[in-house]
């Protein structure tokens, strides 16, 4: 089934928080493939179904190392959704979440939907950020927070499905007629492909 809507989603966060593993888990459902070969994990797709609509999420993984920090705007330009990831066992990665959310609110598309992922929940004993603190921050900035584990798969489906739903609703509200397909004319107007006009005589064509 062909998707009716496609949206660009970016994952952001400090290096080693598990962004790539999270998108890989979401898009493939597993870490290991049957055949061993090099995998380019920076662009993946995930299809979700919402209210009978097939929605395709284009998942853009971004570089997390500090030296590439300035390049992030290139990647989140035009994104309709963002997952800001931190590692629950690393306090400093949560501090970076705050600056990512701030930056996205100021510089990304105005209607971008943001969710936060507290990753590596399979290592609960090493937790440095309390769940209450993370939830309180998310509530304050008006975004959703999910506990995830790319290793066990916990919360992975939920975070992508929920983000897909949010993006879909925002975009449908913004462009109610997006389902209609047409062509942009020279003046920027859409050439709507008309319904069948009067039938010509068959001899006209062949």
């Amino acid at each position, binding site marked *: 089934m062909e998707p009716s809507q496609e949206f660009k989603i970016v994952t952001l966060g400090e290096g080693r928080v598990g*962004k790539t593993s999270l998108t890989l888990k979401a898009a493939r459902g597993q870490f290991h493939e049957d055949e061993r070969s*090099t995998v380019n994990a920076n662009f993946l797709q995930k299809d979700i179904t919402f209210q009978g609509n097939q929605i395709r999420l284009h998942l853009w993984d971004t570089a*997390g190392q500090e030296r590439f920090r300035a390049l992030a705007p290139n990647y989140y330009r035009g994104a309709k959704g963002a997952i800001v990831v931190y590692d629950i066992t690393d306090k400093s990665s949560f501090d970076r979440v705050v600056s990512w959310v701030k930056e996205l609110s100021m510089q990304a598309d105005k209607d971008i939907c943001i969710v936060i992922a507290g990753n590596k929940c399979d290592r609960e004993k090493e937790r440095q950020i309390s769940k209450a603190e993370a939830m309180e921050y998310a509530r304050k900035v008006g975004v959703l927070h999910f506990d995830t584990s790319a290793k066990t798969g916990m919360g992975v489906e939920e975070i992508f499905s929920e983000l897909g739903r949010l993006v879909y609703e925002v975009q449908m509200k913004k462009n109610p007629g997006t389902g209609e397909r047409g062509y942009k004319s020279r003046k920027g107007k859409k050439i709507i492909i008309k319904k069948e006009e009067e039938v*010509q005589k068959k001899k006209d064509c062949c």
Partner: protein
Amino acid sequence: MGAQCSIDRKEKTRRRYFKIIRKQKELYLKKHQLAINTYNFKNWLKHMIRELKSLQEKFPEALWPQELVYLCKSWKRADLKWRSNVIWYNYLHSYKSNIPLPDKTVTNFKLPLPSTFQVDSLLDFIKTHLSHTEDHFISAMIFKFTDSFDKQDFPKYDIKPIIDEINDFVQLALQTLLNYYGGIVRDLIKKKDGDISDLILTYTISNKIHETALNTYLEMYKCEESKYQQNIEKFQYLKCKDFGIKELFQLDLHLENAYGASIDKLRDIEKVNSPIEKLNVITKAAVEICNCIDFIWKENDETTQDDLIIDSDQILSIFMYVVLKAKIKNLRGHVKMIYDFGRKEMQNGSMGYYVITLEACIQQIEMLENQEGFFE
């Protein structure tokens, strides 16, 4: 007597066969009648002239709108064969067997098209039409446009006039295509709206237009390009390790020409004109990166699947290495062409990802000197 019986049987089978075909054609025509006749086939020239008048007002300095008006007025061919070819192609395609056969059989049909062809889709089929500049109107129109466009002068430091004229021409060609072929193509556009626009753009951007656009970008970003070229030369000695590429992907430890296939592929960007072709080159260069790593590590039992996952930090670092070694002149111009002339929808997919990565590499290479600690 026996021979006569055999001839009669053959004749009967032949008649029965043609009866079935006739019936199928009737069914097809009945089913697609509305689509076939949606547009007023005879009026596409009038439609064109009307559109061209408004383009003449929009681009008073441009030569091509007037040239296209002349073309319309002098076009005396009926062009019926192209349209009926499309209809019959669609008919044959819709009755193609879905049953997988062990030995694929090929059926030859004689269409009014003079040459034989092998195509997978209606889009490919239309592509075969676009090289007939003599008697296919849209093909002639593209030829006339590029010919006139080449004679025009454009400002040295501003790409916008070139973008505007080309985009408007592509939209005009698409509208004409709808009127020219009718509803069958309309159905194709409904399903694959971007592909057909890419096809027209590919035919529209001639070598001369490509060169003009690249020269304009070069003038616009003279300082940046100069810095980029300087750094390319200055940092040629850098190794994979210097870019922060992890040891497993430091192919220069094993090969003299590390990532050579990817570097060669990326250089092909200079050989193609249209945004979609350039995008394809970049995507293939990214695929070659994986192939190069596979070449060294795939059969090695010490590596796991997890080791062979390239994350975004790694792909950016490897791409930087590839871009630096490829030493492509005016790479920024090629990337700008993709942004300015290509469809925006393409930029959100995998192709878009690698273009942005390439753009990011150009920025990084330009700033290499200023980034203390980048190579640590």
